[in-house]
């Protein structure tokens, strides 16, 4: 013990002394309470508020519910009434809060001063962009070298961008939609086979067998939340769908598979071709082959099966797919992109066609009408033009080509030749570092907007908290610039108003009614609460769609104009006559009597009640 330098006696002394020292110090420190300055009307500290909005973490467009405490969003969950998310949310969606509160978010506009970007007020940044754009405008008021690089924006934000480029540029092709995660091979295959470059929507709840060629459809691929929910709904049935995974490694979806056809990267294509050959071979007597089966078979290339997969395995899979209809073949996933990805996508969609899955589990024709990612060739053309010095202005909206593309794309060389780059986004990414103006955008949870992720689904995006930093919605900035530059054809001043007009029009198309700010009015309070004459007028004009009235300003005289209306339901001040209300009224009466005779006075005194007793 003494070798260590501490004796037993010394140890005990120290224990005693430290406990005395600890107990001598104050038992608790004062805590500060900071009250609100002006409390928001609908906020109760300690009680959460819930906002329905939409997740922008990927292109699936899940509806979410944001839980907010004291003005800060603390949790996102799926909206149970949403047709896509159905009440669930994936890890990426949950992670949106990390984006929102990220310490590396931009806190205000940045303006280039020589080699560095420096903070500047919005007025200065916008004036700078406006002046720079004005200088580049030709005699017709347009800029030939204007290009815009945006993420997929299937809603009002995209519409504003298109209008801006159409008014200031010389061709709509000057706007390029760059989605590095887009399933471009599948898009290309659908374009080649069915004439529509769009992605399918899957109904996996109907599929009795699923084959995935490296597509992690439960985690990240296409619309993972919706697919996972549909797949798991039938997974517990006795006749559950069989899942076959074809790929080099097992991500989450692969780990749920019944069979793993283990192939090296690139081995998915020979497996898909071999499967198609088996299905189309008349000797195997697969039922209900389409008339063009022979033609397809003749066009198929002969590829050797990859190492580790036998023809017996292919035959077993083929027979399973023949027996278990409808099925769904998915792919290619991110792990199987590459030169053969387009061919693989074609083979997969052909197999879906041969097995009769199209229109049953694999639904086409539901792609968004609003916006579509551009083919890769357009992005390459843009970079080539920039390297040749033909691009004079580049507006980059929430995309980072320098960070997202490989060095072989020579993005930096291209960007450095552009005399004016304006970056809209949340973070100072590699591209924004080369920009001349960086205009920070709101996070999706801080801004209004709308989204049509697929045909028939219209998602409304609303702010769930006030913007944390000095940011501005990117489409609003474009509208402001359009007004300052007096661009023809852009009359809208306010993005929220524009978005509202557009979603009301879209909702009408879908047959939904969203077109009145106050759809209906129920009046059960004292008649004087509402301005009766104004109510009649609003009902006649249709500003208020319908009303249910129990009380009137001058009872028992009911205005004849009200009686004539078709969109008002009137009852003679009998609104409390429900079992529920009458039971509560009875209980309240008893509570009042008990309280009175206990000497505690009435629970609900009215003005005339002699309580508290006067003159005592």
């Amino acid at each position, binding site marked *: 013990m003494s070798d260590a330098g501490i004796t037993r006696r010394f140890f005990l002394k120290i224990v005693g002394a430290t406990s005395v020292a*600890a107990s001598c110090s104050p038992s608790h*420190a004062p805590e500060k309470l900071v*009250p609100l300055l002006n409390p928001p009307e609908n906020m109760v*500290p300690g009680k959460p508020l819930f906002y329905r909005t939409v997740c922008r973490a990927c292109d699936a467009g899940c509806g979410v519910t944001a839980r907010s405490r004291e003005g800060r969003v603390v949790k996102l969950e799926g909206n149970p009434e949403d047709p896509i998310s159905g009440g669930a949310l994936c890890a990426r969606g949950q992670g949106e809060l990390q984006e929102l509160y990220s310490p590396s978010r931009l806190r205000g506009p940045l303006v280039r001063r020589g080699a560095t970007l420096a903070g500047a007020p919005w007025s200065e940044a916008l004036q700078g962009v406006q002046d720079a754009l004005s200088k580049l405008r030709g005699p017709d008021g347009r800029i030939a070298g204007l290009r815009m690089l945006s993420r997929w924006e299937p809603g009002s934000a995209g519409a504003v961008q298109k209008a801006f480029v159409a008014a200031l540029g010389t061709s709509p092709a000057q706007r390029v939609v760059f989605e590095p995660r887009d399933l471009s091979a599948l898009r290309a295959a659908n374009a080649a086979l069915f004439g529509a470059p769009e992605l399918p929507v899957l109904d996996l709840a109907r599929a009795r067998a699923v084959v995935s060629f490296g597509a992690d459809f439960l985690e990240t691929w296409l619309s993972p939340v919706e697919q996972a929910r549909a797949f798991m709904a039938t997974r517990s049935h006795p006749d559950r769908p069989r899942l076959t995974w074809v790929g080099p490694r097992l991500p989450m979806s692969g780990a749920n598979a019944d069979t793993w056809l283990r192939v090296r990267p690139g081995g998915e294509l020979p497996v898909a071709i071999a499967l198609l050959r088996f299905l189309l071979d008349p000797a195997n007597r697969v039922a209900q082959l389409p008339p063009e089966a022979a033609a397809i078979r003749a066009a198929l290339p002969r590829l050797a099966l990859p190492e580790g997969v036998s023809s017996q395995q292919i035959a077993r899979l083929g027979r399973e797919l023949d027996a278990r209809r409808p099925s769904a073949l998915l792919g290619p996933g991110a792990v199987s992109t590459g030169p053969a990805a387009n061919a693989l996508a074609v083979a997969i969609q052909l197999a879906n066609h041969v097995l009769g899955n199209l229109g049953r589990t694999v639904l086409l024709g539901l792609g968004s009408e609003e916006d579509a990612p551009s083919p890769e060739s357009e992005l390459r053309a843009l970079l080539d033009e920039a390297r040749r010095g033909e691009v004079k202005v580049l507006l980059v909206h929430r995309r980072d080509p320098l960070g997202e593309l490989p060095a072989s794309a020579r993005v930096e060389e291209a960007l450095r030749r552009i005399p004016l780059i304006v970056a809209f986004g949340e973070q100072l990414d590699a591209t924004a570092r080369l920009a001349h103006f960086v205009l920070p955008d709101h996070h999706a949870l801080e801004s209004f907007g709308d989204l049509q992720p697929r045909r028939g689904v219209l998602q409304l995006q609303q702010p769930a908290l006030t913007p944390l930093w000095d940011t501005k919605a990117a489409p609003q900035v474009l509208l402001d610039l359009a007004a300052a530059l007096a661009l023809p054809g852009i009359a809208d001043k306010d993005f929220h108003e524009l978005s509202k007009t557009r979603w009301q029009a879209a909702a009408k198309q879908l047959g939904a009614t969203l077109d009145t700010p106050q759809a209906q009015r129920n009046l059960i309070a004292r008649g004087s609460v509402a301005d009766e004459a104004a109510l009649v007028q609003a009902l006649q004009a249709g500003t208020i769609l319908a009303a249910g009235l129990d009380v009137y300003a001058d009872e028992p005289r009911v205005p004849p104009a009200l009686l004539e209306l078709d969109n008002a339901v009137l009852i003679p001040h009998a609104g409390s006559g429900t079992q529920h209300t009458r039971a509560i009224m009875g209980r309240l009466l008893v509570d009042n009597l008990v309280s009175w005779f206990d000497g505690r006075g009435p629970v609900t005194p009215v003005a005339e009640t002699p309580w508290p007793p006067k003159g005592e």
Partner: protein
Amino acid sequence: MADRRQRATCIALLACAAGCSRAGASAAEAPPPVAFSHKLHAADNEIGCGVCHPYARHSPNAGLAPASTCVGCHKFVAKDKPDIQKLLAEFAAGRPLTWTRNHRVPDHVFFSHERHLAKGLDCKACHGDVAEMQLDRQVQPLEMGACMDCHREKQASTDCLTCHK
């Protein structure tokens, strides 16, 4: 050598012990931002608790009077007093006054004002007769024993999960 090391260890440990306990002056010593008197407001002028603590009835947190509530009256009342002038000046500058907290249950206790008030408990039961205090202070221990006594007496649940989630 050993002696020196012992002395160094001793000093280090004492420093640690003092550092582990929370530093700073005790609650009683921290002055309030203005000489606010509960007696003047709640007793002399008969302003109900819920006027300034409106959230107690609707939320787990009682909440503090928002600065705008103070100003609501004091833009007319007692404007000549220096403390009120301070309040108004801070409000005009967009800064609420910062108060010292003197009622606190530990983080592992999930206490809800809403439930206790809904059951008809009087504010006084836990906070004492605040109306008779110039300066509000804690009168009940607010420890588990006190909670349990009351819960047993009123036949409220004494299940652990009632307060500890």
